[in-house]
Protein backbone atom coordinates (compact mmCIF):
# COMPACT_ATOMS: atom_id res chain seq x y z
CA UNK A 1 0.00 0.00 0.00
CA UNK A 2 1.45 3.33 -1.02
CA UNK A 3 -1.63 5.57 -0.75
CA UNK A 4 -3.42 6.12 2.54
CA UNK A 5 -6.81 7.83 2.52
CA UNK A 6 -7.51 10.77 4.79
CA UNK A 7 -10.40 10.63 7.22
CA UNK A 8 -12.22 13.90 6.42
CA UNK A 9 -13.63 14.07 9.95
CA UNK A 10 -10.36 13.83 11.80
CA UNK A 11 -7.52 14.50 9.39
CA UNK A 12 -8.59 17.54 7.37
CA UNK A 13 -9.09 20.96 8.93
CA UNK A 14 -10.69 23.45 6.57
CA UNK A 15 -11.12 27.20 6.81
CA UNK A 16 -8.04 28.06 8.83
CA UNK A 17 -6.77 31.60 8.46
CA UNK A 18 -3.17 32.29 9.26
CA UNK A 19 -1.75 35.69 9.96
CA UNK A 20 1.60 36.15 8.28
CA UNK A 21 3.59 39.20 9.29
CA UNK A 22 6.54 40.70 7.49
CA UNK A 23 8.36 43.96 7.07
CA UNK A 24 7.00 46.46 4.59
CA UNK A 25 10.33 47.67 3.28
CA UNK A 26 12.65 46.08 0.70
CA UNK A 27 13.71 42.51 1.45
CA UNK A 28 10.90 42.31 4.00
CA UNK A 29 12.76 44.74 6.22
CA UNK A 30 10.85 46.33 9.07
CA UNK A 31 12.73 49.60 8.89
CA UNK A 32 14.28 51.92 6.35
CA UNK A 33 16.40 54.99 6.72
CA UNK A 34 14.26 58.02 6.02
CA UNK A 35 17.26 59.89 4.67
CA UNK A 36 17.51 57.49 1.69
CA UNK A 37 13.91 58.01 0.66
CA UNK A 38 13.32 59.43 -2.79
CA UNK A 39 10.25 61.27 -3.97
CA UNK A 40 9.26 61.32 -7.60
CA UNK A 41 8.78 65.06 -7.80
CA UNK A 42 12.33 66.20 -7.25
CA UNK A 43 13.95 63.41 -9.16
CA UNK A 44 11.73 63.59 -12.18
CA UNK A 45 11.65 67.32 -12.51
CA UNK A 46 15.14 68.19 -11.54
CA UNK A 47 14.08 71.38 -9.86
CA UNK A 48 11.12 72.39 -7.81
CA UNK A 49 8.43 74.30 -9.60
CA UNK A 50 9.62 73.30 -13.01
CA UNK A 51 7.96 70.06 -13.99
CA UNK A 52 9.67 68.45 -16.93
CA UNK A 53 6.62 66.66 -18.17
CA UNK A 54 3.26 67.84 -19.30
CA UNK A 55 2.18 71.39 -19.90
CA UNK A 56 -1.13 71.11 -18.14
CA UNK A 57 -1.64 71.49 -14.44
CA UNK A 58 -4.19 68.73 -14.81
CA UNK A 59 -1.38 66.29 -15.50
CA UNK A 60 -1.29 64.25 -12.32
CA UNK A 61 2.39 63.58 -12.81
CA UNK A 62 3.06 67.16 -11.89
CA UNK A 63 2.47 65.88 -8.38
CA UNK A 64 -0.04 68.53 -7.48
CA UNK A 65 -2.01 65.76 -5.76
CA UNK A 66 0.58 63.45 -4.25
CA UNK A 67 4.18 62.40 -4.25
CA UNK A 68 5.19 58.79 -4.67
CA UNK A 69 7.88 57.83 -2.20
CA UNK A 70 10.55 55.21 -2.80
CA UNK A 71 12.69 53.71 -0.01
CA UNK A 72 15.90 54.22 -1.98
CA UNK A 73 17.05 55.28 -5.42
CA UNK A 74 16.97 51.60 -6.44
CA UNK A 75 13.20 51.36 -6.03
CA UNK A 76 12.87 54.73 -7.73
CA UNK A 77 14.79 53.45 -10.73
CA UNK A 78 12.51 50.41 -10.82
CA UNK A 79 9.42 52.61 -10.47
CA UNK A 80 8.41 50.67 -7.35
CA UNK A 81 6.80 53.15 -4.94
CA UNK A 82 6.06 52.05 -1.37
CA UNK A 83 3.91 54.92 -0.22
CA UNK A 84 2.60 58.30 -1.19
CA UNK A 85 2.40 61.54 0.72
CA UNK A 86 -0.20 64.17 0.03
CA UNK A 87 -1.70 67.30 1.43
CA UNK A 88 -5.43 67.92 1.74
CA UNK A 89 -7.35 71.03 2.63
CA UNK A 90 -11.07 71.02 3.36
CA UNK A 91 -11.57 74.41 1.76
CA UNK A 92 -9.54 73.80 -1.33
CA UNK A 93 -9.77 77.27 -2.78
CA UNK A 94 -6.98 77.88 -0.39
CA UNK A 95 -4.08 75.59 -0.19
CA UNK A 96 -1.32 75.31 -2.67
CA UNK A 97 -2.08 73.85 -6.02
CA UNK A 98 -5.54 75.25 -6.30
CA UNK A 99 -4.40 78.10 -8.44
CA UNK A 100 -3.76 77.58 -12.14
CA UNK A 101 -1.12 80.03 -13.22
CA UNK A 102 -1.51 78.90 -16.80
CA UNK A 103 -4.86 80.59 -16.98
CA UNK A 104 -4.59 82.70 -13.83
CA UNK A 105 -7.67 81.16 -12.35
CA UNK A 106 -8.41 78.81 -9.52
CA UNK A 107 -10.02 75.86 -11.22
CA UNK A 108 -7.93 72.94 -10.05
CA UNK A 109 -8.54 71.86 -6.52
CA UNK A 110 -6.13 69.06 -5.73
CA UNK A 111 -5.98 69.76 -2.01
CA UNK A 112 -9.75 69.73 -1.65
CA UNK A 113 -9.96 66.60 -3.78
CA UNK A 114 -7.37 64.91 -1.59
CA UNK A 115 -9.14 65.92 1.61
CA UNK A 116 -12.51 64.67 0.37
CA UNK A 117 -11.07 61.43 -0.96
CA UNK A 118 -9.57 60.48 2.37
CA UNK A 119 -12.54 61.78 4.31
CA UNK A 120 -14.96 59.67 2.29
CA UNK A 121 -12.73 56.66 2.58
CA UNK A 122 -11.96 56.83 6.27
CA UNK A 123 -14.70 58.66 8.12
CA UNK A 124 -17.65 56.40 7.43
CA UNK A 125 -21.09 56.89 5.99
CA UNK A 126 -22.42 59.43 8.50
CA UNK A 127 -20.26 62.29 7.38
CA UNK A 128 -21.49 65.30 5.50
CA UNK A 129 -19.81 67.94 3.38
CA UNK A 130 -18.60 69.87 6.39
CA UNK A 131 -17.29 66.86 8.30
CA UNK A 132 -13.62 66.99 9.15
CA UNK A 133 -11.00 64.72 10.56
CA UNK A 134 -10.95 65.00 14.32
CA UNK A 135 -7.89 64.35 16.46
CA UNK A 136 -7.78 63.57 20.15
CA UNK A 137 -6.15 66.10 22.44
CA UNK A 138 -6.76 64.13 25.58
CA UNK A 139 -9.60 65.86 27.32
CA UNK A 140 -11.15 67.12 24.08
CA UNK A 141 -10.76 66.97 20.33
CA UNK A 142 -9.48 69.24 17.61
CA UNK A 143 -10.62 69.50 14.00
CA UNK A 144 -8.10 69.08 11.24
CA UNK A 145 -9.05 71.32 8.35
CA UNK A 146 -5.91 70.44 6.51
CA UNK A 147 -4.03 67.18 6.60
CA UNK A 148 -0.83 65.47 5.62
CA UNK A 149 -1.44 61.88 4.55
CA UNK A 150 0.93 58.93 4.39
CA UNK A 151 -0.68 56.19 2.37
CA UNK A 152 1.03 52.83 1.90
CA UNK A 153 0.85 50.88 -1.32
CA UNK A 154 -1.69 48.08 -0.99
CA UNK A 155 0.74 45.75 -2.68
CA UNK A 156 3.34 46.52 -0.02
CA UNK A 157 1.09 46.58 3.05
CA UNK A 158 -0.85 43.44 2.03
CA UNK A 159 -3.89 43.23 4.35
CA UNK A 160 -2.95 45.87 6.89
CA UNK A 161 -0.19 47.81 8.54
CA UNK A 162 0.29 46.44 12.03
CA UNK A 163 -0.79 48.71 14.84
CA UNK A 164 1.84 49.11 17.52
CA UNK A 165 4.58 48.59 14.96
CA UNK A 166 4.89 51.95 13.24
CA UNK A 167 7.36 54.68 13.96
CA UNK A 168 8.43 57.64 11.86
CA UNK A 169 10.17 60.92 12.45
CA UNK A 170 9.89 64.45 11.16
CA UNK A 171 12.47 67.16 11.24
CA UNK A 172 11.93 70.90 11.19
CA UNK A 173 13.07 74.16 12.62
CA UNK A 174 12.02 73.00 16.09
CA UNK A 175 14.08 69.80 15.92
CA UNK A 176 13.43 66.12 15.38
CA UNK A 177 10.19 64.52 16.49
CA UNK A 178 9.34 60.83 16.50
CA UNK A 179 5.83 59.48 16.40
CA UNK A 180 4.06 56.17 17.05
CA UNK A 181 0.45 55.08 17.35
CA UNK A 182 -1.26 54.73 20.71
CA UNK A 183 -2.35 51.09 20.31
CA UNK A 184 -0.04 49.92 23.14
CA UNK A 185 -2.21 51.98 25.48
CA UNK A 186 -5.50 50.56 24.23
CA UNK A 187 -7.11 47.58 25.89
CA UNK A 188 -8.97 46.44 22.79
CA UNK A 189 -8.49 46.39 19.04
CA UNK A 190 -9.60 49.62 17.36
CA UNK A 191 -10.20 50.53 13.74
CA UNK A 192 -8.03 53.62 14.20
CA UNK A 193 -5.44 54.85 16.64
CA UNK A 194 -4.19 58.29 17.60
CA UNK A 195 -0.69 59.34 16.64
CA UNK A 196 1.39 60.39 19.63
CA UNK A 197 4.97 61.42 20.31
CA UNK A 198 7.26 58.60 21.34
CA UNK A 199 9.32 55.75 19.99
CA UNK A 200 8.86 51.99 19.93
CA UNK A 201 11.98 51.48 21.98
CA UNK A 202 11.04 54.09 24.54
CA UNK A 203 7.31 54.16 25.03
CA UNK A 204 6.00 57.02 27.14
CA UNK A 205 4.53 55.93 30.45
CA UNK A 206 1.30 57.64 29.49
CA UNK A 207 0.28 58.85 26.04
CA UNK A 208 0.41 62.60 25.46
CA UNK A 209 -2.42 63.39 23.07
CA UNK A 210 -1.70 66.55 21.08
CA UNK A 211 -4.16 66.15 18.22
CA UNK A 212 -1.32 65.05 15.94
CA UNK A 213 -3.08 62.51 13.79
CA UNK A 214 -4.89 59.25 13.31
CA UNK A 215 -3.63 55.90 12.05
CA UNK A 216 -5.91 53.54 10.11
CA UNK A 217 -4.25 50.08 10.09
CA UNK A 218 -6.63 48.33 7.70
CA UNK A 219 -6.25 51.11 5.14
CA UNK A 220 -2.55 51.57 5.66
CA UNK A 221 -3.09 55.29 6.03
CA UNK A 222 -1.77 57.83 8.50
CA UNK A 223 -3.64 61.15 8.56
CA UNK A 224 -1.78 63.94 10.29
CA UNK A 225 -3.19 67.26 11.41
CA UNK A 226 -1.15 69.54 9.14
CA UNK A 227 -1.35 72.71 11.17
CA UNK A 228 -0.50 70.92 14.43
CA UNK A 229 2.40 69.08 12.83
CA UNK A 230 3.68 72.25 11.16
CA UNK A 231 3.62 74.17 14.43
CA UNK A 232 5.10 71.32 16.46
CA UNK A 233 7.95 70.42 14.11
CA UNK A 234 8.43 73.83 12.56
CA UNK A 235 7.86 73.69 8.82
CA UNK A 236 9.47 77.02 8.10
CA UNK A 237 12.23 77.52 5.55
CA UNK A 238 13.51 73.96 5.58
CA UNK A 239 17.07 73.81 4.28
CA UNK A 240 17.09 77.57 4.72
CA UNK A 241 14.84 78.03 1.71
CA UNK A 242 11.65 79.94 2.32
CA UNK A 243 10.02 78.01 -0.51
CA UNK A 244 10.10 74.95 1.71
CA UNK A 245 7.57 76.25 4.18
CA UNK A 246 4.15 75.07 5.17
CA UNK A 247 1.57 77.51 3.88
CA UNK A 248 -2.06 76.41 3.62
CA UNK A 249 -3.08 79.65 1.96
CA UNK A 250 -0.52 79.79 -0.78
CA UNK A 251 -2.20 80.41 -4.10
CA UNK A 252 0.32 81.61 -6.58
CA UNK A 253 1.92 78.44 -7.81
CA UNK A 254 0.65 75.65 -9.98
CA UNK A 255 2.17 72.92 -7.91
CA UNK A 256 1.52 71.81 -4.39
CA UNK A 257 4.36 72.70 -2.12
CA UNK A 258 2.97 71.54 1.21
CA UNK A 259 3.33 67.80 0.71
CA UNK A 260 6.81 68.42 -0.65
CA UNK A 261 7.63 70.21 2.57
CA UNK A 262 6.27 67.27 4.50
CA UNK A 263 8.32 64.80 2.45
CA UNK A 264 11.42 66.93 2.89
CA UNK A 265 10.81 66.88 6.65
CA UNK A 266 10.66 63.07 6.51
CA UNK A 267 13.95 62.78 4.70
CA UNK A 268 15.71 65.33 6.89
CA UNK A 269 14.90 63.39 10.03
CA UNK A 270 17.94 61.28 10.79
CA UNK A 271 15.91 58.25 11.83
CA UNK A 272 14.23 55.12 10.52
CA UNK A 273 10.69 54.53 9.33
CA UNK A 274 9.55 51.35 11.06
CA UNK A 275 6.59 49.46 9.69
CA UNK A 276 5.43 45.88 9.46
CA UNK A 277 2.40 44.43 7.76
CA UNK A 278 0.11 41.45 8.09
CA UNK A 279 -1.45 39.16 5.58
CA UNK A 280 -4.31 36.82 6.38
CA UNK A 281 -3.88 33.64 4.41
CA UNK A 282 -6.65 31.05 4.21
CA UNK A 283 -5.27 27.58 4.60
CA UNK A 284 -6.24 23.95 4.92
CA UNK A 285 -4.41 21.57 7.21
CA UNK A 286 -4.01 17.88 6.53
CA UNK A 287 -2.92 15.63 9.34
CA UNK A 288 -0.78 12.84 7.93
CA UNK A 289 -0.81 10.16 10.60
CA UNK A 290 1.88 7.58 9.99
CA UNK A 291 1.04 4.74 12.35
CA UNK A 292 3.65 2.31 13.60
CA UNK A 293 2.91 -0.43 11.09
CA UNK A 294 2.77 1.88 8.08
CA UNK A 295 5.45 2.89 5.59
CA UNK A 296 8.39 1.01 7.07
CA UNK A 297 9.65 -0.20 3.69
CA UNK A 298 10.68 1.69 0.61
CA UNK A 299 10.71 1.42 -3.18
CA UNK A 300 13.90 3.46 -3.15
CA UNK A 301 16.33 1.56 -5.42
CA UNK A 302 19.05 1.71 -2.76
CA UNK A 303 16.78 -0.02 -0.25
CA UNK A 304 17.09 -3.34 -2.06
CA UNK A 305 19.40 -5.38 -4.25
CA UNK A 306 18.76 -4.99 -7.96
CA UNK A 307 19.54 -8.65 -8.69
CA UNK A 308 22.47 -7.96 -10.97
CA UNK A 309 25.21 -9.33 -8.72
CA UNK A 310 24.17 -12.93 -9.33
CA UNK A 311 24.01 -13.55 -5.60
CA UNK A 312 21.16 -11.55 -4.16
CA UNK A 313 17.75 -11.71 -5.77
CA UNK A 314 16.11 -8.54 -6.99
CA UNK A 315 14.06 -6.91 -4.29
CA UNK A 316 15.93 -8.40 -1.33
CA UNK A 317 16.41 -5.76 1.35
CA UNK A 318 19.95 -4.44 1.16
CA UNK A 319 20.69 -3.76 4.81
CA UNK A 320 20.49 -6.86 6.96
CA UNK A 321 19.55 -4.71 9.96
CA UNK A 322 16.43 -3.65 8.09
CA UNK A 323 15.13 -7.21 7.87
CA UNK A 324 14.67 -7.41 11.62
CA UNK A 325 14.11 -3.71 12.13
CA UNK A 326 13.16 -1.94 8.92
CA UNK A 327 13.52 1.82 8.88
CA UNK A 328 12.64 4.45 6.35
CA UNK A 329 13.54 8.12 6.21
CA UNK A 330 10.64 10.29 5.16
CA UNK A 331 11.59 13.38 3.17
CA UNK A 332 8.49 14.10 1.12
CA UNK A 333 4.74 14.10 1.58
CA UNK A 334 2.52 13.92 -1.46
CA UNK A 335 -1.15 14.82 -1.39
CA UNK A 336 -3.36 13.13 -3.98
CA UNK A 337 -6.88 13.49 -5.29
CA UNK A 338 -9.21 10.56 -5.88
CA UNK A 339 -7.65 10.01 -9.31
CA UNK A 340 -4.28 9.56 -7.63
CA UNK A 341 -3.00 12.75 -9.18
CA UNK A 342 -0.29 14.46 -7.17
CA UNK A 343 -1.79 17.88 -6.48
CA UNK A 344 0.41 19.14 -3.64
CA UNK A 345 3.77 18.28 -2.23
CA UNK A 346 5.62 19.14 0.96
CA UNK A 347 9.17 18.55 2.06
CA UNK A 348 10.46 17.95 5.55
CA UNK A 349 13.39 20.07 6.66
CA UNK A 350 15.31 16.89 7.50
CA UNK A 351 14.57 13.18 7.06
CA UNK A 352 12.20 11.77 9.66
CA UNK A 353 13.01 8.25 10.78
CA UNK A 354 10.10 5.82 10.61
CA UNK A 355 10.05 2.26 11.92
CA UNK A 356 7.71 -0.22 13.59
CA UNK A 357 8.77 1.40 16.88
CA UNK A 358 7.43 4.87 16.29
CA UNK A 359 4.60 6.91 14.87
CA UNK A 360 4.79 10.30 13.21
CA UNK A 361 2.16 12.97 12.73
CA UNK A 362 2.80 15.51 10.02
CA UNK A 363 0.68 18.63 9.80
CA UNK A 364 0.70 19.58 6.14
CA UNK A 365 -0.55 23.08 5.48
CA UNK A 366 -1.70 24.44 2.15
CA UNK A 367 -2.29 28.13 1.69
CA UNK A 368 -4.74 28.85 -1.07
Amino acid at each position, binding site marked *: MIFTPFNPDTDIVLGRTLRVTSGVWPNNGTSISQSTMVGDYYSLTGSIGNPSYGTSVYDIRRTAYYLNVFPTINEFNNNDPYLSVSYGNIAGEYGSGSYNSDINFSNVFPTKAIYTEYKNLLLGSTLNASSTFVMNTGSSTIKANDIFVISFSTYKMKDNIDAGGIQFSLSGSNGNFTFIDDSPFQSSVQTSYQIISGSLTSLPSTPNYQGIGVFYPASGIIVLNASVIANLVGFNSLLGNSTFSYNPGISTVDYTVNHQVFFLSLTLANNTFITQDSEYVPSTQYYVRVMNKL*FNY*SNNPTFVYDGTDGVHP*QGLIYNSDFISNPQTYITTVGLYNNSNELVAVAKLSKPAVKSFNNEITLKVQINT
Partner: protein
Amino acid sequence: MFLDNTTITVQAILTKRGRELLAQNGNINITSFALSDDEIDYTLYQNGGNSAFNDLALRNTPVMEPLTDESQMLKHKLVTLTQGATSIPVISVSQPNIIVASTYNGTVTITPSTTPAYDLQDGYTLVLGNKNVGTLIVQQANATNTPSNIIPSTVGNINTVSSQVVVGNIFQFIPNSNLSVTTTTNLTIIGNDSGASNSIEVTVTVPVQTS
Protein backbone atom coordinates in the same frame (compact mmCIF):
# COMPACT_ATOMS: atom_id res chain seq x y z
CA MET B 1 7.08 24.45 29.31
CA PHE B 2 8.74 22.80 26.36
CA LEU B 3 7.75 22.63 22.72
CA ASP B 4 5.56 19.77 21.62
CA ASN B 5 7.65 18.05 18.97
CA THR B 6 5.35 15.12 18.31
CA THR B 7 3.87 16.87 15.30
CA ILE B 8 6.00 18.05 12.43
CA THR B 9 4.51 20.99 10.57
CA VAL B 10 5.34 21.39 6.90
CA GLN B 11 4.14 23.76 4.22
CA ALA B 12 2.91 22.22 0.98
CA ILE B 13 2.95 23.79 -2.44
CA LEU B 14 0.54 23.02 -5.22
CA THR B 15 1.90 21.14 -8.18
CA LYS B 16 1.19 22.34 -11.69
CA ARG B 17 -1.62 19.81 -11.90
CA GLY B 18 -2.95 21.00 -8.56
CA ARG B 19 -3.02 24.57 -9.78
CA GLU B 20 -4.79 23.52 -12.95
CA LEU B 21 -7.47 21.72 -10.95
CA LEU B 22 -7.82 24.63 -8.55
CA ALA B 23 -8.35 27.00 -11.47
CA GLN B 24 -10.83 24.66 -13.16
CA ASN B 25 -12.84 23.42 -10.21
CA GLY B 26 -12.15 25.81 -7.35
CA ASN B 27 -10.79 23.01 -5.21
CA ILE B 28 -8.27 20.20 -5.42
CA ASN B 29 -10.21 17.58 -3.49
CA ILE B 30 -7.33 15.91 -1.67
CA THR B 31 -8.30 12.43 -0.51
CA SER B 32 -5.09 10.56 0.25
CA PHE B 33 -1.39 10.87 0.89
CA ALA B 34 1.80 9.06 0.07
CA LEU B 35 5.33 9.36 1.39
CA SER B 36 8.69 9.10 -0.25
CA ASP B 37 12.40 9.15 0.47
CA ASP B 38 13.78 10.12 -2.93
CA GLU B 39 16.90 11.78 -1.51
CA ILE B 40 18.00 8.89 0.70
CA ASP B 41 20.86 6.51 -0.12
CA TYR B 42 20.24 3.45 2.05
CA THR B 43 23.59 1.92 1.14
CA LEU B 44 25.16 4.50 3.44
CA TYR B 45 23.60 2.76 6.44
CA GLN B 46 26.21 1.00 8.58
CA ASN B 47 25.02 -2.51 9.36
CA GLY B 48 25.70 -4.21 12.65
CA GLY B 49 26.19 -3.09 16.21
CA ASN B 50 23.89 -0.94 18.23
CA SER B 51 25.50 2.34 17.49
CA ALA B 52 23.24 5.31 17.38
CA PHE B 53 25.37 6.48 14.51
CA ASN B 54 24.54 3.65 12.10
CA ASP B 55 22.16 5.86 10.21
CA LEU B 56 23.93 9.17 10.73
CA ALA B 57 24.55 9.60 7.00
CA LEU B 58 20.89 9.01 6.26
CA ARG B 59 19.62 11.36 8.94
CA ASN B 60 22.01 14.07 7.77
CA THR B 61 20.97 13.90 4.14
CA PRO B 62 20.02 17.38 2.96
CA VAL B 63 16.47 17.50 1.66
CA MET B 64 15.72 19.29 -1.58
CA GLU B 65 13.02 21.87 -2.00
CA PRO B 66 9.75 20.69 -3.49
CA LEU B 67 9.23 21.08 -7.22
CA THR B 68 5.94 21.97 -8.82
CA ASP B 69 6.40 19.41 -11.59
CA GLU B 70 4.49 16.42 -10.27
CA SER B 71 6.41 14.04 -12.53
CA GLN B 72 9.62 14.82 -10.64
CA MET B 73 8.27 14.22 -7.15
CA LEU B 74 7.69 11.06 -5.09
CA LYS B 75 9.33 8.75 -7.57
CA HIS B 76 10.16 6.20 -4.90
CA LYS B 77 7.30 5.79 -2.48
CA LEU B 78 7.33 4.22 0.93
CA VAL B 79 5.25 1.10 1.17
CA THR B 80 3.52 -0.79 3.93
CA LEU B 81 4.49 -4.45 4.29
CA THR B 82 3.98 -6.95 7.08
CA GLN B 83 6.73 -7.07 9.67
CA GLY B 84 9.39 -9.60 8.84
CA ALA B 85 9.34 -9.04 5.11
CA THR B 86 12.69 -9.71 3.57
CA SER B 87 11.96 -8.38 0.10
CA ILE B 88 10.23 -5.43 -1.44
CA PRO B 89 7.56 -6.35 -3.99
CA VAL B 90 9.02 -6.80 -7.46
CA ILE B 91 6.90 -6.72 -10.59
CA SER B 92 7.64 -9.19 -13.33
CA VAL B 93 6.05 -10.17 -16.62
CA SER B 94 6.47 -13.38 -18.51
CA GLN B 95 8.27 -11.77 -21.43
CA PRO B 96 11.52 -9.77 -20.95
CA ASN B 97 10.47 -7.66 -23.92
CA ILE B 98 7.89 -7.66 -26.67
CA ILE B 99 8.88 -7.92 -30.30
CA VAL B 100 6.01 -8.27 -32.71
CA ALA B 101 5.40 -7.59 -36.36
CA SER B 102 2.95 -4.89 -37.32
CA THR B 103 1.21 -7.45 -39.51
CA TYR B 104 0.58 -9.79 -36.57
CA ASN B 105 -3.16 -10.43 -36.41
CA GLY B 106 -3.26 -11.78 -32.87
CA THR B 107 -2.74 -10.12 -29.52
CA VAL B 108 0.10 -10.22 -27.06
CA THR B 109 -1.06 -10.95 -23.53
CA ILE B 110 0.70 -9.13 -20.72
CA THR B 111 0.21 -10.61 -17.25
CA PRO B 112 2.11 -8.72 -14.57
CA SER B 113 2.67 -10.34 -11.21
CA THR B 114 4.15 -9.09 -7.98
CA THR B 115 6.45 -11.07 -5.71
CA PRO B 116 5.76 -11.31 -2.85
CA ALA B 117 2.07 -11.25 -3.67
CA TYR B 118 0.82 -7.67 -3.84
CA ASP B 119 -1.21 -5.34 -6.05
CA LEU B 120 -4.12 -7.76 -5.81
CA GLN B 121 -6.66 -5.09 -5.02
CA ASP B 122 -5.85 -2.18 -7.28
CA GLY B 123 -3.95 -4.03 -9.95
CA TYR B 124 -1.47 -2.39 -12.25
CA THR B 125 -1.11 0.77 -14.29
CA LEU B 126 0.50 0.28 -17.66
CA VAL B 127 1.98 3.21 -19.54
CA LEU B 128 2.85 2.72 -23.19
CA GLY B 129 5.36 5.43 -23.98
CA ASN B 130 4.46 5.78 -27.65
CA LYS B 131 0.90 4.83 -28.47
CA ASN B 132 1.70 4.96 -32.16
CA VAL B 133 3.22 1.47 -31.93
CA GLY B 134 -0.04 -0.14 -30.93
CA THR B 135 -2.90 -0.27 -28.47
CA LEU B 136 -3.21 -1.61 -24.94
CA ILE B 137 -6.55 -3.05 -23.90
CA VAL B 138 -7.59 -4.39 -20.52
CA GLN B 139 -8.37 -8.08 -20.61
CA GLN B 140 -9.13 -8.35 -16.91
CA ALA B 141 -10.04 -5.28 -14.88
CA ASN B 142 -8.66 -4.83 -11.38
CA ALA B 143 -10.74 -5.58 -8.31
CA THR B 144 -11.74 -2.01 -7.64
CA ASN B 145 -12.37 -1.49 -11.33
CA THR B 146 -11.32 2.13 -11.38
CA PRO B 147 -10.07 2.88 -14.87
CA SER B 148 -7.74 5.83 -15.02
CA ASN B 149 -5.94 7.71 -17.72
CA ILE B 150 -3.72 9.43 -15.21
CA ILE B 151 -0.03 8.74 -15.51
CA PRO B 152 1.37 7.97 -12.05
CA SER B 153 4.02 10.46 -11.07
CA THR B 154 6.48 7.62 -10.53
CA VAL B 155 6.74 7.15 -14.27
CA GLY B 156 8.55 10.45 -14.65
CA ASN B 157 9.04 12.13 -17.98
CA ILE B 158 6.20 10.74 -20.04
CA ASN B 159 4.48 12.77 -22.70
CA THR B 160 0.82 12.58 -21.85
CA VAL B 161 -0.18 13.26 -25.45
CA SER B 162 1.78 10.49 -27.08
CA SER B 163 1.35 7.83 -24.40
CA GLN B 164 -1.47 5.49 -23.45
CA VAL B 165 -2.38 4.58 -19.89
CA VAL B 166 -4.56 1.68 -18.78
CA VAL B 167 -5.38 0.12 -15.41
CA GLY B 168 -6.19 -3.52 -14.76
CA ASN B 169 -4.79 -6.94 -13.96
CA ILE B 170 -4.23 -8.56 -17.35
CA PHE B 171 -3.70 -6.70 -20.59
CA GLN B 172 -3.41 -7.25 -24.32
CA PHE B 173 -1.22 -5.44 -26.78
CA ILE B 174 -2.34 -5.08 -30.38
CA PRO B 175 0.35 -3.79 -32.76
CA ASN B 176 -0.44 -0.95 -35.10
CA SER B 177 -0.83 -2.51 -38.54
CA ASN B 178 -0.38 0.88 -40.19
CA LEU B 179 3.03 1.53 -38.70
CA SER B 180 5.44 2.60 -41.43
CA VAL B 181 8.79 2.06 -39.72
CA THR B 182 10.00 -0.29 -37.03
CA THR B 183 9.53 1.46 -33.72
CA THR B 184 10.57 0.71 -30.15
CA THR B 185 9.10 2.22 -27.01
CA ASN B 186 8.95 1.52 -23.28
CA LEU B 187 6.10 -0.17 -21.47
CA THR B 188 6.14 0.80 -17.81
CA ILE B 189 4.22 -1.35 -15.33
CA ILE B 190 3.40 0.10 -11.94
CA GLY B 191 1.87 -1.75 -9.01
CA ASN B 192 -0.96 0.41 -7.76
CA ASP B 193 -0.74 -1.00 -4.23
CA SER B 194 2.99 -1.64 -3.94
CA GLY B 195 4.36 1.31 -5.86
CA ALA B 196 6.84 -1.05 -7.46
CA SER B 197 7.58 -0.61 -11.14
CA ASN B 198 9.14 -2.43 -14.01
CA SER B 199 9.80 -1.50 -17.59
CA ILE B 200 10.16 -3.58 -20.74
CA GLU B 201 10.79 -2.65 -24.34
CA VAL B 202 8.09 -3.01 -26.95
CA THR B 203 9.21 -3.22 -30.56
CA VAL B 204 6.84 -3.37 -33.48
CA THR B 205 8.65 -4.38 -36.63
CA VAL B 206 7.63 -3.38 -40.12
CA PRO B 207 8.54 -5.85 -42.85
CA VAL B 208 10.89 -4.46 -45.46
CA GLN B 209 9.06 -3.94 -48.73
CA THR B 210 10.78 -5.56 -51.73
CA SER B 211 9.93 -4.48 -55.24
